[in-house]
């Protein structure tokens, strides 16, 4: 394998992993607060179409990311209102959110398909990335560095800050947190909004980072993989990083197989396309064989909370 090819592979893996990592970090915080939002895929699609439309009309990538985050928050608030204020079933509401996001993005995106935009360029000046080795370090767009920074930020927030402690407490025992005097619902609204912003940005990665156009359902189940990764990572940010890159690698292999990448093409392309999903199942199986995995789950995950007054 030539150096060029190796670097190309690394760059592709990073690109494929970034949206999953960002979305999963958001969902991790949401779940740590005791809420299971299965609408990640839907929020990502809303973020993707928002990001696309903004960059198509203004050409400003950073504005696109910002508004995609905002659209993600807005979408997540539908979920928040139903599950937190009206204590609706979280599983059903999350599914409804995904159905909504799929339909809404398709509706908003009609007429935009096959219209090209430009990808978000590298963050650092190209002089830094002239040599192939430097490209591995300095050749990415801001979204990639953002995803790494957020791993650290989420870890630090949960582990080291008082707000993070309160968030974990709310996810661990909502009634106790309420009786001590914390507003369970407010904390969870905050977490859900953060998850929405991250999912929106993750969705924007698709038109801004991967394929410079809009296509219906372009997130192709990555939001669901992000949800699975949170379980895989036992709700730990650094394990999430490892898991997201594992999936990035699997998806990159699919791309190379489709491009006629040597020995990989011996296996039917459809099997490669199914690989990320089958890998998710395998990973979930492996993680559950290790017995301690689920014991790290927030105790109140998915349970509706309604304070008695």
């Amino acid at each position, binding site marked *: 394998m030539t150096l060029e090819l190796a670097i190309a592979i690394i760059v592709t893996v990073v690109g494929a992993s970034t949206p999953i990592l960002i979305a999963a970090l958001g969902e991790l915080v949401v779940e740590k607060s005791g809420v299971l939002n299965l609408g990640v895929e839907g929020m990502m699609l809303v973020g993707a179409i928002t990001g696309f439309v903004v960059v198509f009309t203004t050409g400003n990538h950073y504005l696109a990311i910002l508004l995609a985050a905002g659209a993600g928050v807005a979408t997540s608030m539908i979920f928040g209102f139903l599950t937190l204020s*009206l204590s609706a079933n979280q599983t059903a509401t999350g599914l409804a959110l995904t159905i909504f996001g799929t*339909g809404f993005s398709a*509706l908003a995106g009609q007429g935009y398909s096959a219209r090209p935009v430009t990808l978000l360029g590298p963050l650092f000046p190209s002089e830094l990335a002239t040599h192939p080795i430097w490209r591995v370090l300095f050749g990415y767009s801001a979204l990639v560095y953002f995803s790494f920074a957020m791993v650290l930020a989420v870890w630090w927030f949960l582990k080291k800050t008082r707000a993070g402690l309160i968030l974990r407490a709310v996810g661990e025992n909502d009634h106790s947190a309420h009786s001590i005097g914390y507003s369970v619902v407010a904390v969870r609204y905050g977490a859900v909004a953060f998850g929405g912003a991250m999912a929106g940005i993750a969705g924007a990665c698709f038109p801004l980072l991967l394929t410079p156009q809009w296509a*219906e359902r372009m997130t192709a189940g990555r939001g669901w993989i992000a*949800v699975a990764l949170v*379980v895989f990572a036992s709700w730990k940010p650094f394990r999430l990083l490892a898991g997201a890159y594992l999936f990035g690698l699997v998806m990159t292999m699919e791309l190379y197989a489709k491009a006629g990448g040597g020995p990989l093409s011996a296996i039917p392309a459809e*099997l490669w396309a199914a690989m990320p999903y089958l890998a998710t*199942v395998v990973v*979930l*199986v492996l993680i559950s064989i290790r017995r301690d995995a689920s014991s790290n789950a927030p105790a109140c995950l998915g349970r509706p909370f309604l304070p008695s007054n």
Partner: protein
Amino acid sequence: MMQFRLEKRREPSRFMLYATPVAAVALTMIIGAVIFSVIGYDGIGAVREIFLTPLTNSFKWQDLGVKAAPLIIIGVGLSIAYRANVWNIGAEGQYIMGGLAATWVALASHGAGGWWTLPAMMLAGMAGGAAYGAIPALLKTRLNVNEILTSLMLTYASVQLIYYLVRAPWKDPMGMGFPQTRRFASEALLPNIFPGTIVHAGVPIAIIVALIAWFIMSRSVFGYQMRVVGAAPHAARYGGFSENKTIWLAMLVSGGLAGLAGMLEVAGPFQRMVPGFPTNYGFTAIIVAFLGRLNPLGVIFAGIVMAITFVGGEVAQTTIGLSNSATGVFQAMMLFFLLAGDILVRYRLKRVVPQVEAGA
């Protein structure tokens, strides 16, 4: 200023239980019209075409029946699983596997079929769907792997299996290069029950499935087991019902019914396996199950309502040029309103007179 407060009801309100789905549909029509008008569409026209034209135009009735049938069959299965708190959201994948299994029977018996071909396809369809539902059941009961994620991931994988089969081993050699199987022989195609229409035998089968399911769920120990495991798993164990057995039954029944729907679709409207076979019936049936209050009789009505939006969506596309995807937005809105209304089943809104601040 008027203020409201939620107050727990002593008994869940049966009226609200059945009134909220109706209200959800009505609210979707009203608020949908407003929102679509605000964002620049012909809102009232959209609602009229999507919700009313399919009912007023008798030419559309047969479409309704054909679209409602798979939704009802899958929705009945899902309503049983969700009752038991088993979250099978991979019905689309089980539908696909049922369709593929039936296709295999049809192709293998091509030219050698007979009266037994359709029953064999039906069995194969159910077996295929049930087998695909068995994977999440096995993983859930043995390793406690979340069935939501596994059943969904398997759906994505099954779509790829269709692509593979119709592009390679099952490809019609006479198909001029199209990735699809040959058209099934006539004994492998569902008969039409009204000559001159497209209404196939799947439509009465859907109604029969729903009625049988309703009887079983309300009268039998099986139905009781599903309900009690879903309502209180701890109490179910105390009463002698195994949670694992229930998960298996729920996944097999819901998978088997989704597979049956897949068989009916491939042997009915499609007449062959094509890459466009996954039509999202499996996902829409999730809404159908909830809108039908997880009650098989309710599922019949919910299936018809959902079929109306599908047929109406197509109407709106041709008459007022509204994207087909608007249908999905309307369907999701319906589910949102239903979930929002759920709280009124257990709680009532009570007006409270704001108090003057004590000690002020």
